[in-house]
Structures are given as C-alpha cells and as structure tokens.
C-alpha cells in the first residue's frame, strides 16, 4: 500500500514543490522572526500574502477548474471576517489563547461561508457565464450591505477586533496563516488530483458530455462552491485577526476582482500560478503604497492599471503568441541545450495534471450559453399519444 502511495503522482517532486517552498518560507521566516530579524512590516506582509494565496487558490478552484466565473469571492471572505471574528471575540472572553480562538473561529467562519457558498451554488446550476458572474457579484454586495447595517457588527464603523487582533507580543500570525496555506494547498490539490477533480474539470471542458458520462453535475458544482467558499471564509477570519476594525468597505466587488486578477494572471487552473500571482500582486501593492509619496498616490492606480493591461495583452493577445514563443524561456533553453527532450518523455509522464488544465480556453468560462435542459421548453405532451 505504502509503495503504491509513494509511486503515485503525489510524491513526484514537481507536484509537491509548492509545499516545499511554502514550508521552507514558513520555517525561514519563523526563525528570522524568533531571532528578531524580521521587521513587523514584513511579518504583516506575509500575513497578507498568506490570505491572498488562500483566496486566489480557492477562487481558482471555481474559475479555473470548474469553469464558472465568480465575482463574489470577497463576499464569502466578508462573512468569515465579520461572523468568524465575532465568534472569536466572544470566545476570547472564555479562552485566553488567541491562537485557539483563531483556530476555532476559522472553522466556524469557514463553515458559515461554506453554507453561503451552497446558497450561491444553487443558482450556479441554472446560470452560466456572465449571468452567474453578476449573481455572484450581487451576492457579495448583498452580504456587505446587510452586515454593515447590523448593530452587532458596529454598523458602518465596522467591528473593532482589537481584543483578538494579533499584536507584536503575540505569536506571529503569519506562521498560523502559512501552516493553513499548506493545509489548504494539500486539500485543494488532493481534490484536483483525484477522480473528483477529474469530474470537475470534465464539467468545465464539456458539461453535456460530462452529464452523458453520468457525472453528477449538480453535486460537483455545489461541492466546488462550498469548498471554495469555506477557504474564503477562513481567509476572512485571518483578515479579522490581522487588522482592526473589520470594515465593509474592504469587501467590495473591487476586491473580488483583484482576486480574480490574481487567478487570471497566475493562469487559469494553475495552482502554482495562483500562489505566485497572489504573492507578487500583494507585494506590488504594498511596495507601490510604500514608495509613492502622498502627492503621487493617484499614480499608483495608473501604474497598476498599466501593468495589468500590459500583462493581460502580452499574455493573451493572439498576435503576440508567435513573438512570445520565439523569446520564451523554453525556446531559449531549447536553443541553449541542443539536446531536445524527446516528446515521448514528456508524454509518458503521467503527471500532467497541472499542466493540462491550464490549457482551458477561457471563452468556455464566459459564454452565454444557457445550460442544456433549460434552453427550450418542448410542447406539452399531446393527449392520446398521437
């Protein structure tokens, strides 16, 4: 049995490289932190990177693997941040340890967000493409509007989370976040690299064929929405323990879009891509804030917008494809090492899991096609069978 396990793709280096890196980063930064060598700003940046990774990876599950466009991810995060942290604050009056409060509230916030994920998943069964996108966006805004008007959460002022916020004196939050990132990666990759992940990508590739193969489309769509919402909720709880107050303004659809940008730039269906994009975008945002003096703050958006447009055009423009191939890293490498990898070597590698889904054509995500089964109504049955 163990031999089988070790033989499986899970233990190939390329499939666990991301664990290794995240784990290494956690250890290195933890050591640095314990020796006092880590500035607070970097510790905080790490927390932001951590929850961004969780958000991006979980959204990738919905957009990249299931192929449904969701613009409401910040809404799930909002639920986790508000309700999860609220629970944590209540717990804090009984339990002294912030870490334990955090872990319990993480589960609570995640489960609550997952419940809402289920509710949002229901329309996903009937709607596709832009229609689903606007419904998820609407959901995010509804959550935000309701939460900001409830007196328990401090109304428009937001909920003060000072009681459970991790300060310098507490255990470094980023370690908890990064350990969670590893767990999330494990859970998400395990799902993706299993028969269930295959079923999910099958639905994305061709829903009609998936149905004809007996795949329970309803179950898997709901499952993915619930799964992804859970992690977004967890990320929200981290947010609540990282900063105070938890304010509704943060969770607008603009933030959902920012997460989507991470997913798209990282590559649809590429988990490592999401990790890298989430890390880089968070760093870029912080750096732009840090180094642009007040008067030039408006430039930040300008630069961000230009980078965004430039990157997307560079990555996606059909006309640039040939140019990119000519200058790509692979082409250069091939030129340098005259010895070419035989195609069979690549092909016979059964671990093409990650690579293959990135080939998804994104127009399959954004199409207005109405689901089969709803697209027309046949005439009423004629009486008498004639």
């Amino acid at each position: 049995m163990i031999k089988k396990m070790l033989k499986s793709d899970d233990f190939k280096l390329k499939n666990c490289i991301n664990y290794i890196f995240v784990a290494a980063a956690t250890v290195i930064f933890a050591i640095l932190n314990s020796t006092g060598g880590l500035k607070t700003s970097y510790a905080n940046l790490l927390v932001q990177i951590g929850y961004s990774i969780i958000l991006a990876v979980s959204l990738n599950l919905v957009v990249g693997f299931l192929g449904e466009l969701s613009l409401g991810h910040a809404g799930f995060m909002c639920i986790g941040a508000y309700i999860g942290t609220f629970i944590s604050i209540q717990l804090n009056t009984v339990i002294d340890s912030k870490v334990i409060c955090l872990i319990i509230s993480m589960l609570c916030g995640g489960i609550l967000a997952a419940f809402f994920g289920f509710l949002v998943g229901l329309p996903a069964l009937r709607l596709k493409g832009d229609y689903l996108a606007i419904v998820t966006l609407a959901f995010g805004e509804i959550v935000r509007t309701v939460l900001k008007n409830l007196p328990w959460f401090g109304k428009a002022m937001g909920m003060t989370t000072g009681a459970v916020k991790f300060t310098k004196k507490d255990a470094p939050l980023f370690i908890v976040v990064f350990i969670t990132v590893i767990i999330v990666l494990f859970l998400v990759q395990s799902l993706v690299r299993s028969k269930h992940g295959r079923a999910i990508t099958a639905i994305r590739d061709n829903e009609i064929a998936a149905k004809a193969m007996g795949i329970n489309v309803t179950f898997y769509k709901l499952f993915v929405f619930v799964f992804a919402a859970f992690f977004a909720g967890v990320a929200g709880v981290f947010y609540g323990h990282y900063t105070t107050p938890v304010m509704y303004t943060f969770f607008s659809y603009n933030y959902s879009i920012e997460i989507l940008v991470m997913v798209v730039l990282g590559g649809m269906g590429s988990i490592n891509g999401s990790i890298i994009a989430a890390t880089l975008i968070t760093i870029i945002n912080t750096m732009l804030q840090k180094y642009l003096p007040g008067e030039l703050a408006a430039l930040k958006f300008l630069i961000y917008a230009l980078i965004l447009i430039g990157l997307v055009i560079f990555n996606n423009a059909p006309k640039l494809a040939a140019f990119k191939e000519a200058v790509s890293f692979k082409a250069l490498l091939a030129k340098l090492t005259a010895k070419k990898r035989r195609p069979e070597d690549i092909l016979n590698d059964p671990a093409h899991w990650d690579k293959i889904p990135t080939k998804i054509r994104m127009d399959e995500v954004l199409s207005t096609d109405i689901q089969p089964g709803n697209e027309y109504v046949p005439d009423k049955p004629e009486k008498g069978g004639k």
Partner: protein
Amino acid sequence: MSDVVLRTENLGISFGGLKAVQDVNLEVKKKQLYGLVGPNGAGKTTIFNLLTGVYQPTTGKFYLNGEELNGKTQEQINRKGIARTFQNIRLFNNMSVIRNVLVGLHNQPEFKCSPVSSILRLPTHYKTEEAMRERAKEILRIVDLEDERNNLACNLPYGKQRKLEIARALATNPKLLLLDEPAAGMNPHETEDLMNIVRKIRDDYDMTILLIEHDMKFVSGLCDEVTVLNFGTVLAQGETNEALNDPEVIKAYIGG
C-alpha cells in the same frame, strides 16, 4: 422477451409544433448491432437525445431491460446503463486521453471513493486510482489508443477522437451503447478498422449497440437489423438488407 434490451413505445417529440420524431417503436435485443439510418434531418440524433435524457419525449415511453426511463436525467440514464457518443465530437479537450476514459469510469461501483477519502488521501484513494488507471488502459487497448494515452484529446486526429469517444462511453459500463455516426469523417481503412472494433466490443462485452450511420457499407456490413427513418417517422424496419432495399427507402433516399 427477456433478451430485449431497449424497447420504445410510440416515442415522439415535437418542437413548437414541428413533430421531429413520431411514433418510433424499436426493439433492440441483447448483443444485437442495430442500425438507425435515414436522410439528414430524419430525427436519428433526436432519438438518441430522447434515449439519453437530453430531451424529454412528448409522447411515448422507452424501457431499458423492461425498466421505464422516461423523465430521468442524463446522469441517471447513464447510470442505468445507456452510454452514447456524439455526432459532433464532445471530448474533454483539455484533458489527456486516459483522463477522458477515467472520467467515464467515475461512477463504477468498484471504483467508489468518496471525496473525503480523496481529499484526505486515505488509502482507498490510492487503491482506486491505481485500479482505475489499469482499467482505463485496458479499455484504451480495445480501441488501439493505449499509446496515445497521455496526449491531449484535442490533439488526436479525427478518427482517433471518434474511437476515444467510444472508449469513454464504454468505460461507463453500459448495457446499451449508442454510437452517433461513428465512422463519419473516416477513410475506408479507418472505417474497416472501426467495424472490427465495434464487433469486438459486442463480442467481448456482450454489448448491445444501437448506431446511426450514413455509410451504407458500414451499416450493411455490421448491423443485424435496421430502422429507416424519414421526417421523424419509421419508413422501414427489419433485417438489414431487406429494410434497406425496401422501395419506400430507396424512394426516400433517391428522392424519386
């Protein structure tokens, strides 16, 4: 009667007043190779869509091994034992060949593995994965695609894509296999090859096969019985050569 796998009773559907299929009565027996022929627009694919739950019939009923399947969803019908291929190929294009077949194996009881055990990587997961892979290779061997198993489905040539669709449908372990123009776009050599494969499937798996085909050589060389459709109604039915030589059929085809 027990050897009748598929039976339809006055099966029909109309779209907004247009009767696409009307009063179709089929009886397909076990291990039979049954052909469904007719000019374009005769309603052949519509019948397939009715039988697989894509459309719900407006009249009539159909039974698989005596069990009525009206009103079931596509997923349910597949699990009851009807699998199909598509006229316009519908593979999972961004997945490798073997993964396409693995998706077909998804619901087989012997490969049961709950999402929880997969996500938590319990031993069941590894066991089923391994077993599924073996079975998938076996199935690919039948259609001569084992060597292509790690290629992307969309990179296969047309003929192989058709064969892969058959393999994928076969993977769902059906009692009845519906093939929608399996030889379309193939050259004579490939068609010959395909005929052998279809026969092999029937013999090795005791499979009952209902197929739509325009290639008359293919049909007459393969099918035991055919139903000829025209404008949604049955024109002729019976033993292959007999039905195809029916004067009504020749009239419909030649247009005389």
